[in-house]
């Protein structure tokens, strides 16, 4: 245990660091997306600002800050302003229970690479995400315009529906690892079976079906293609954020990408063994490697996100709902039952 002052100092440093890294990551995920999608479509993507357009996110940020912040006269002001804040705060909060790697020694103290480890870490993430729905729903409602309202309605219906599948897909992992604490879930996936296959939940826990469900539900939760109905440009003129501009719009943007990163982190932790991987080399490398593995896995996940966006068309709304309720939901239940049986048999 750390003493209180050190704990406080460490926490503040960690929070600042994590937020800084997260925001940078958000900015560069946007860059990555533009670049990758560009290449997929035989374009260059951003290439003018800095080498390979690497400074583009910075330019974008400056643009958002300097733009005039319009608030249309017909909106319901308090909620119109609060909505993007809710969205972005919820998106940033959920990162706080994610473990990025093993504990590292700093000046004689062992400091875990995680802002806080809670017994109910996973539930905190789920709770915060479920509050995040309000951001979108209220944005749609308070804008007082039909496109926004439809977008908001669609978004809240979609997110509530897919949250169920998301939650159910996680239950399988919980049964296998027996804890809500993300640290312990990662711990439980350490080691190998049959000599070489890592004991990740996706392999050892037979959670590949759950992983698939999680993937689908996560895409829907973050309103990404092929489930980006709430903000479908062609039918809803960008949906719930039609009326938003400048910084408020940027907040939604940030929230979306921060959510993507959280979802990717969560997938890594729950299914892909978190920071687990082969450790070798000198002690310093051994300390850094878990974090490296973690980031690499998250990157793969983010890349898949972008890849899917570049490849798949959008669903129709009824198809989306039918897919969620008639396919994913029964599948998740079946997975749950099978997992429970397997675990009961093993013990």
């Amino acid at each position, binding site marked *: 245990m750390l003493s209180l002052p050190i704990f406080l100092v460490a926490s503040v440093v960690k929070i600042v660091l994590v937020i800084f890294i997260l925001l940078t990551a958000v900015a560069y995920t946007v860059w990555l997306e533009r670049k990758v999608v560009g290449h997929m479509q035989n374009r260059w993507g951003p290439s003018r600002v800095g080498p390979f357009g690497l400074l583009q996110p910075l330019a974008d940020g400056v643009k958002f800050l300097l733009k005039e912040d319009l608030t249309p006269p017909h909106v319901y002001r308090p909620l119109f302003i609060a909505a993007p804040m809710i969205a972005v705060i919820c998106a940033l909060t959920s990162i706080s229970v994610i473990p990025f790697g093993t504990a590292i020694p700093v000046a004689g103290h062992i400091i875990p690479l995680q802002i806080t480890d*809670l017994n*109910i870490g996973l539930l905190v993430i789920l*709770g915060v995400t*479920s509050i995040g729905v*309000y951001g979108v729903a209220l944005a749609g409602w308070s804008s007082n315009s039909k496109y926004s*309202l439809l977008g908001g309605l669609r978004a*809240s219906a979609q997110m*509530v529906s897919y949250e169920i599948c998301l939650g159910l897909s996680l239950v399988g992992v919980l049964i296998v690892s027996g804890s809500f604490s993300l640290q312990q879930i990662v711990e439980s996936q350490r080691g190998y079976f049959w000599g070489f296959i890592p004991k990740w939940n996706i392999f050892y826990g037979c959670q590949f079906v759950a992983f698939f469900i999680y993937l689908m539900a996560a895409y829907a939760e973050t309103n990404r293609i092929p489930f980006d109905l709430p903000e479908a440009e062609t039918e809803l003129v960008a949906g719930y954020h039609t009326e938003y501009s400048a910084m408020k719009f940027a907040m939604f943007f940030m929230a979306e990408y921060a959510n993507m990163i959280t979802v990717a982190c969560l997938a890594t932790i729950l299914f892909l063994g978190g920071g687990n991987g082969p450790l070798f080399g000198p002690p310093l490398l051994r300390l850094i490697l878990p974090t490296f593995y973690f980031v690499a896995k998250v990157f793969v996940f983010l890349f898949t996100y972008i890849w899917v966006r570049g490849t798949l068309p959008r669903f129709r709304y009824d198809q989306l709902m039918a897919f969620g309720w008639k396919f994913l939901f029964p599948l998740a239940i079946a997975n749950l039952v099978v997992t429970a049986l397997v675990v009961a048999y093993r013990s």
Partner: protein
Amino acid sequence: MLHLVLFLVFGAICVAGAINLLVQSHPISSALSLVVVMASLAVEYLLLGAEFVAAVQVIVYAGAVMVLFVFVIMLLNAGVEERTKGSRVALILGIPGVLAGGLLVAWVLIERTGTATVGLGALPGFPKTIGNLLFHDFLLPFEVTSVLVLIAIMGAVVLASRPEPKNPEKES
């Protein structure tokens, strides 16, 4: 000390949210005030050690039930509440009655619990212990809730789906 301060702060937020719920005239503001009340109640649960309850409170209550409310308010495009006659009668008769009843109950509660105090995290409700209780001692109620949920689903489908227009409404 920390416990008391946290209790008071979040208790105050709770009460403020509840009063705001009463004062606001738009249903969506009332619904959001209730979300605030629920979130700060979750903190109160945490103070009492009921961490699992707190998490479920946020996920189920604030995150699902209230979203449903907001959704319906958006769907029906509910506007600002009209003040009609009935409300004034209830205002004059109801509030003093409720306050008197509340005072009586408060007095009784204090009489019973006396000066008993609870510490921070007095009764840790870990998911595991709660689960054991839920799937053993409370197994039957737990299973019976599935019937309840089934009824709720059927009811929602029956009532909210569009009635078949075979026979147009003729009653007054």
